[in-house]
């Protein structure tokens, strides 16, 4: 009798946990569909694919929201319409492309420059459909593969997206003209501190001499190291990294700030 009671009790406990887990929101996580710039997609297909990228691989919804203020980024409701009037001489698609590839080039008032350039995360095809989806939020979808090719300089031979396991994402972002050559050799530590406190402390310690939650201590980092690590997510030759992490994205838009960062970190 006791054995039966123990069995029933066990079923009851296990059943309770199963019931609870089944009563919470249920979501399946599917892999992002591979999207080639060469693929002939209808407007609806592009929007649908873009929405999927938005909520999965792009992880946009973690910061942005649609119809309300996001946790860290602005509300994207109506962005398809607003995009055309954000910057002078920028069409909606040009602005949205820039927002994805160089997010800090234009900042909506009240928001920090914390979004990583999406060229390091999304393939050109995914960038295209994401722009199409964003355009569909109040605007007209007119993005074409050529628009993406022009901005991302994707070679024709690389356009057909192959599995990421075989080759890296076929993206070569437009080379950033390094402004450091024309900058004075000594930067402004105040400007450097402002950049550091705005961006770097998300991972590094507010005191650069100390290790941060994710990034190591970086006080005294050389200009060569900063250029390699910050702009290209690489290390100078023969440099021994303090942590074997791969999470810091390249931030090519900081090319003009490297000299200031170097000065601040001295």
């Amino acid at each position, binding site marked *: 009798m*006791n*054995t039966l*009671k*123990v*069995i029933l*009790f*066990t*079923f009851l*406990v*296990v*059943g309770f*946990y*199963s019931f*609870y*887990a*089944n*009563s*919470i*929101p*249920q*979501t*399946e*996580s*599917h*892999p992002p569909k591979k999207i080639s710039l060469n693929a002939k997609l209808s407007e609806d297909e592009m929007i649908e694919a873009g929405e999927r990228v938005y909520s999965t691989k792009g*992880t946009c919804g*973690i910061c942005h*929201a649609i*119809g*309300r203020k996001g*946790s860290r980024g602005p509300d994207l409701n109506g962005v398809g319409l607003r995009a055309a009037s954000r910057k002078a001489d920028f069409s909606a698609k040009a602005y949205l492309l820039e927002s994805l590839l160089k997010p800090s080039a234009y900042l909506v008032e009240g928001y920090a420059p914390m979004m990583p350039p999406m060229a390091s995360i999304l393939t050109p095809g995914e960038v295209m459909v994401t722009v199409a989806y964003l355009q569909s939020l109040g605007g007209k979808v007119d993005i074409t593969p050529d628009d993406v090719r022009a901005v991302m300089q994707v070679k024709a031979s690389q356009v057909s997206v192959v*599995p*990421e*396991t*075989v*080759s*890296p994402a076929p993206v070569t972002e437009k080379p950033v003209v390094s402004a450091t050559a024309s900058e004075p050799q000594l930067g402004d530590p105040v400007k450097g501190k402002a950049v550091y406190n705005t961006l770097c*402390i*998300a*991972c*590094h*310690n*507010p005191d650069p001499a100390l*290790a*941060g*939650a*994710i990034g190591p201590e970086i006080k005294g980092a050389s200009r060569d190291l900063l250029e390699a690590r910050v702009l290209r997510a690489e290390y100078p030759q023969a440099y021994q990294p303090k*942590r*074997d*992490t*791969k*999470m810091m994205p390249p931030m090519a838009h900081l090319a003009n700030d490297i000299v200031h960062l170097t000065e601040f970190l001295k």
Partner: protein
Amino acid sequence: MTTQISTKSFLSLLFPLLILVFAGAAWGQELIELPEYRAFPWIGSRVAVWVAAEVHLMFAAFVLGVPMFAVIVELIGVLTGQERYDKMAREFTKLLAIAMSTTAIWGGVLLFLLLTLYPRFMNYLSEVFLPTLWIYPMLFFLEAFTLYIYYYGWERMKDGKSKWFHLYLGLQLNIVGTILLLVANAWATFMMTPGGVDMKTGALMNIWEVIDNFAWWPINIHRLIANVTFGGAIVGAYSAFKFLHSKTDEDKAHYDWMGYVGNMIAIWSFLVLPFAGYWLMRELYQYDQTMGITMMGGFLSWLWIIQAVLISSLFLASNYYLWLGMERIDGGERYQKYIKYMLSVLLLCVWVWATPHSLVVTPEEVALMGGVHHPVIGVFGVMSAKMTAVNFMILTSAIGFMFYRRANKVATVSYALKLNLLQAGIFAGVAAYVLYLGIDGYFVEPSIRVNKYSVWQVLAVLFAILSTTVIDLFLFKDSKSLGKFHWGKMPQRSQYILIFIAVSFTWLMGLMGYARSAIRQHWHVYKVMEDTSVDAFAPTLGFAANVVSVCVLIFLGLVMFIFWLGSLADHKKEDASLSPEPAQ
């Protein structure tokens, strides 16, 4: 019986080894072109492998965790000279001998399924891990034979120097078992955080970096501690099962005491686990932020709420067991009045811990709540509040255990009042400090909250536990006893609490196993080898929970079968001891 177990175990060990040997040779020669995948009927390949792997891992945790428990208990028996410790250690080693065979059988099933259902993936893993595939079976042989000598040599090595050699065998059993764990962990963690291979082609570059990948040590430490916890919980459940079936007061007293010891080991090692888990998560974030975000803020975010419910239930259950335990101690009634306060604190902490934060929510849910966070309790859904809640739960449990320890004692030293006040002051001070950090944590940088405040909270709680325990030693020196522990005088529901704890631990282990695998999403080896099968997606948490439940029921069903087998041997002994009685 003995011969049967040995033969069966030997065959079950030999079988997987032969598969490894022949399969390894076949892979190397590439005689045939391997298909990508094969389909398993009805339930699909993924669920088949999932169930086999999870049940195998549960048994592996059993056969690695229980020896740790057994050797420590045997050592206590040697040092204290109390026979009951030796009896308990032996009782569990007997179960191990049977469980080892079952572990090997499930390992064989898992290997069969992987080889037949995922040939390309296994081909790749065998290329990368080839040396470990030769070492592993040899270690397994060593582990098995050490266990058998340890168990079957118990009687022969009972006294004198040979007892110490017996203890050494127990130590060797644990060392070899731990190395086995490290090797298997290298396979599992490589799939999550691969290193030592060319990330574009997957080609092997450095075998040591393959093994010593990013998540290897965090998982090693986490699993080692978890195995101790699991071993203790299973011991508790076994004791409860035997207690419920005991017919004599003597047996009830023995199994009540055994359940108490098992539960204490489970709970105290369990208290360390969140910190090991925290380290693991931090390492995963460092390896790949996307992986971290997927886990904490993406589709797996609700999993942590399920985990909070499970762990909160464990805290409540273990405290309830202690409170019930005080009823069997003369003088324990003096502390009953504090239970309602401790229960209130625990329930409040459960509420805070189970508050969701970053979630996948539908627009309807957002509209209902008026935002992504709940308007009232949303403020508790952040790390600062949850860390504070967890530390308060640990602190409350420590106070409960302190009451339990002193239940039948009255201090007689002249400075008793001062020491009591000092203890109260330490607990109050630490509670205030933990609360202060929890509140201030809302206003500081994440790096300070993560790297400093969380650590300080933990250290303060540990300080409170250790310092009050040391003070107890002085406080109850030459203390007066109000009575004794009436082992066996426990209500039946206390034994169901022990079973609840074991079932919950097992379920929690299954859930965390799913979490570890699910963060790879559609990758066999993260960002090296993509899963292109029909199962290349992460299922819903509800589906995962159902599979976990099935695994738990299979495991517990087999464990009950093993308990029953163990009791058969006991009946035989009883029969044998009765038979020589001459007829009157």
